[in-house]
């Protein structure tokens, strides 16, 4: 995939995923063997190779069928949206059914397969075919005796196909110990692809593996693939590298308080969010908020529901004031509801891929992830999740997974060890105090942002999810009515205190008033006394003046001399 200059030329199959695994397609101008058991999809893969070649790469093709008649084949692949009749009419494809019935054939000596060569050659030349499918050539061994001649002829056939320069697919039934029953891999050795269809836990999944590819690098793992109404889809998911570009854009969660908890802005775009919690803690409600917020912004959201039907989810969300239906009608929101047991994990993954590629959402909800965990498949769930997250991150899609945990402890979530692929993990807990259960939300982690370490009480109201501060005090964390009771108690205490203070204030005021009154009274008394004292003083002064006057008058009358001055002074003092 990295250096294509030294690689041999390839012929793209047009099958989603297969070209990525093979680094561009099947070896051009060479035969490729596709082998696998009954019903594993060999014919369809081969047919899609031809049809896509004819439709998309302008490479006409010849399909030589040894097992199904042209009519059957046309009908069978019509269900995949391949209109063979039309392609045949437009000379893009030639369908040749080779009929061999052992009971009608008698062998009387040496023979060769020149007839087959001529037929094939004529078909190729008639439309200038670049691609050839021989499906399933091994049935020749059942129809014709003398395997020695057949082997020699097949070897010649493959060489002849190479000389013709056509890209060929030869299909073969899986053998007991060899890849194919007749050991075709000995002759077709450039590229061998094995298909498998296996059942585990009563669920089947199809897998594809490139066993060998001469002269080219290729993905070596087993890749799940899907056959549905659009043909074959292979997922080369485990080959992805960790190269997704991290966005710095933040998108709101749809719950204001939750945004605040997540550094004030919400999730990162393209991040993976996990909401885990016990039953009935409101995981879906958080998802619904997120979806609604996304749709409000005009983004597209894809909701994978694995437990509830779309109408049930919408009804339930309406009860908390989230109406999703308008968004569905507008085409911004799409539900895809399936039962987890419907197919295997791989198939679910493939279907999610397909739906995401078709709908191109910005937001994906997987509700819930835990329903995939059946028995002991936790490692598989993890690998599935990892691949899913890789894929979604590469597409810059923000994903919210919900996950049901069986008990209060988070230990069993850690078992699944999905934490490593999750960026923001919030946990919804049930806290049981005072005979009631209350929901609480806390953040386990949120990569790349400052986030709150506080537990919030999580309430479902008729206008959506509400987050409230919980009471944290000497009695521990209180929620629900316990919190309300505690709040009331505190309020009462505060009231009492307030009362006390007011009372004291009043008392003080009273005291001050009393004191002031006293002061006024005392001042009045004092003023009275002062006035009295002043009056007496004035009286005495008046008397003294009068006395002095009288004395002067007497001195005048007695014609006293200056000596009188001193006596006057003496008399004054004595009068006091």
């Amino acid at each position, binding site marked *: 995939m990295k250096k294509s200059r030294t690689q041999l030329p390839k012929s793209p199959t047009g099958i989603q995923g297969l070209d990525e695994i093979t680094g561009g397609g099947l070896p051009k101008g060479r035969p490729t063997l596709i082998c696998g058991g009954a019903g594993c999809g060999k014919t369809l893969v081969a047919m899609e190779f031809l049809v896509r070649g004819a439709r998309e790469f302008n490479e006409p093709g010849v399909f030589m069928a040894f097992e199904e008649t042209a009519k059957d084949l046309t009908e069978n692949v019509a269900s995949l949206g391949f209109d063979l009749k039309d392609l045949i009419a437009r000379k893009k494809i030639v369908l040749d059914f080779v009929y061999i019935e052992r009971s009608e054939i008698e062998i*009387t000596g*040496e023979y060769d397969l020149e*007839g087959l060569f001529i037929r094939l050659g004529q078909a190729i030349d008639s439309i200038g075919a670049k691609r050839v499918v021989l499906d399933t050539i091994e049935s020749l061994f059942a129809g*014709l005796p003398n395997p020695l001649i057949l082997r020699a002829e097949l070897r010649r056939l493959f060489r002849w196909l190479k000389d013709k320069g056509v890209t060929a697919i030869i299909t073969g039934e899986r053998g007991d110990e060899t890849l194919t029953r007749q050991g075709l891999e000995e002759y077709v050795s450039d590229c061998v692809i094995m298909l498998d269809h296996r059942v585990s836990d009563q669920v089947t999944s199809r897998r594809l593996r490139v066993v060998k590819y001469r002269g080219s690098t290729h993905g070596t793992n087993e890749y799940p693939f899907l056959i549905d109404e659009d043909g074959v889809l292979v997922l080369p998911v485990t080959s992805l590298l960790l190269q997704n570009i991290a966005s710095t854009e933040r998108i709101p969660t749809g719950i204001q308080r939750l945004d605040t908890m997540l550094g004030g802005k919400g999730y990162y775009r393209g991040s993976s969010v996990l909401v885990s919690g016990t039953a009935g803690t409101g995981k879906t409600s958080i998802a619904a908020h997120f979806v609604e917020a996304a749709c409000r912004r005009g983004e597209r959201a894809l909701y994978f529901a694995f437990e509830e039907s779309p109408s049930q989810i919408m009804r339930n969300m309406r009860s908390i004031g989230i109406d999703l239906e308008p968004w569905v009608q507008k085409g911004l929101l799409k539900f895809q509801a399936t039962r987890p047991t419907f197919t295997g994990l791989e198939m679910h993954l493939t279907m999610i891929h397909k739906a995401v590629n078709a709908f191109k959402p910005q937001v994906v909800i997987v509700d819930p992830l835990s329903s995939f965990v059946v028995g002991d498949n936790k490692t598989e769930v993890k690998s599935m999740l990892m691949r899913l997250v890789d894929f979604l991150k590469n597409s810059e899609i923000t994903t919210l997974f919900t996950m049901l945990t069986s008990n209060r402890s988070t230990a069993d979530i850690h078992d699944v060890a999905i934490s490593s692929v999750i960026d923001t993990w919030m946990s919804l807990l049930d806290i049981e105090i005072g005979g009631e259960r209350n929901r609480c939300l806390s953040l386990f982690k949120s990569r790349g942002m400052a986030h709150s370490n506080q537990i919030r009480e999580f309430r479902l109201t008729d206008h959506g999810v509400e987050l409230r501060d919980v009471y944290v005090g000497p009695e521990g964390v209180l929620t629900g009515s316990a919190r309300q009771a505690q709040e009331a108690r505190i309020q009462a205490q505060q009231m009492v205190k307030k009362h006390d203070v007011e009372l004291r204030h009043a008392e003080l005021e009273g005291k001050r008033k009393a004191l002031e009154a006293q002061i006024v009274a005392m001042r009045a008394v004092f003023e009275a006394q002062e006035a009295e004292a002043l009056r007496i003083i004035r009286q005495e002064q008046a008397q003294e003046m009068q006395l002095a006057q009288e004395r002067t008058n007497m001195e005048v009358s007695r014609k006293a001399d200056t000596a009188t001055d001193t006596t006057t002074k003496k008399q004054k003092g004595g009068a006091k």
Partner: protein
Amino acid sequence: MKTKPTTQKSAPPEAKPTEAKADTMVLRLYVAGQTPKSITAFINLKKICEEHLAGRYKIEVIDLLINPQLAHGDQILAIPTLVRKLPEPVRKIIGDLSNTERVLIGLDLLPRE
């Protein structure tokens, strides 16, 4: 419909029309060019027919190199193939017809074991 087969018809033509149409065996030998196997097959066929079906047979030789499109009709894969068109049911005999006994069995001229 094709001209080639008629030109390659050998001994039988004069014998065929005189004989009753009902029990005439119509045989087609498919070959691809004048390969040793084809020639051997034709010689063997003629010999067998002369010995066992004198005057009651008709042979068409079809060369697929000349008329490749004819390979479809009788579902020809192997070369040489002898097809008994009539009487029904159609029988196919593959190979150079060197095993006379098997040819006779194939043409229902000998009972099958």
